[in-house]
């Protein structure tokens, strides 16, 4: 087991890199599978010294659910934002800063949360506080900042906590 951990410091990353390589090749052959597997083993092995304290995903399968939730939200939010851009006069729009107190501790999880917030239209993560306890989000139109904060915490942060912690 110990030897396995030394050779494959990040088994999930190995899998991800192999699949990425196969997708890049855009075809299936034993040749590309072996090469991809080689990359998947070499890259985590050579970079492990530069990435200490890597969080272990406690429930990797939850990632699939998270991605589907985010994709659905992106489509829905796109339509809402398109309506705001097209039909709402600038004077009626309420752009607003929202601060989100973070329960997440690992930098990787906070990065994932910030990226998700930016990709779902209507919200944009702009900054973190100096000690990483709060996230600053800009909203395109937020008459009710409390509701946006609650939605982000419940929909995304809660799921990320299950995945990372």
């Amino acid at each position, binding site marked *: 087991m110990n030897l396995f951990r030394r050779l494959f410091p990040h088994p999930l990353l190995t899998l991800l890199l192999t699949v990425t390589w196969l997708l890049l090749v855009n075809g299936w052959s034993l040749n590309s599978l072996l090469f991809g597997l080689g990359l998947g083993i070499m890259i985590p092995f050579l970079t492990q010294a530069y990435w200490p304290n890597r969080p272990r995903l406690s429930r990797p399968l939850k990632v699939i659910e998270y991605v589907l939730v985010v994709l659905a939200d992106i489509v829905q939010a*796109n339509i809402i934002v398109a309506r705001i851009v097209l039909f709402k006069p600038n004077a009626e729009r309420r752009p607003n800063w929202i601060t989100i107190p973070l329960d997440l501790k690992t930098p990787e999880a906070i990065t994932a949360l910030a990226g998700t917030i930016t990709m779902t239209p209507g919200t944009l993560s702009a900054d973190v506080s100096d000690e990483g306890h709060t996230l*600053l989000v800009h909203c395109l139109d937020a008459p009710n900042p409390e509701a946006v904060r609650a939605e982000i915490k419940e929909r995304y942060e809660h799921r990320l906590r299950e995945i990372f912690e």
Partner: protein
Amino acid sequence: MDSLFEFLVSAFLVIAGIFGIVGSFGLLKLDDPMSRLHAPTKATTLGVGGVLLASMLNAAAFGEYFSMHELMITLFLFLTAPITAHFIAKVHIHRQETRETMPAAGEDDHWATHDTPEDEERRNAAADPADL
């Protein structure tokens, strides 16, 4: 059957085009810098996403093979788009805002963009030496 796929592919292309135009229009119409940043993120999600879906469908229905490159483009876009948006937002905070004009940073003192080397020294001095 072929015409059904042709219809779907063109529908995705039209949807993507509409969201692309709305994104560019938003860049012109919205009137403050931070709000303008919202427009490009929209164009990259549904705008590009629609074109990629159309392309995958087209390759699967009329090409010889099932194309996977579109998934890679989506993945890389989703990795890079938030970073550029974050950079632009940080430049805005750095140049247009001060600590006083920003909202309070929750339990911390200020936002990371306004952090200075003196702040860091103060934090390190205050921290428990055992933690360092």
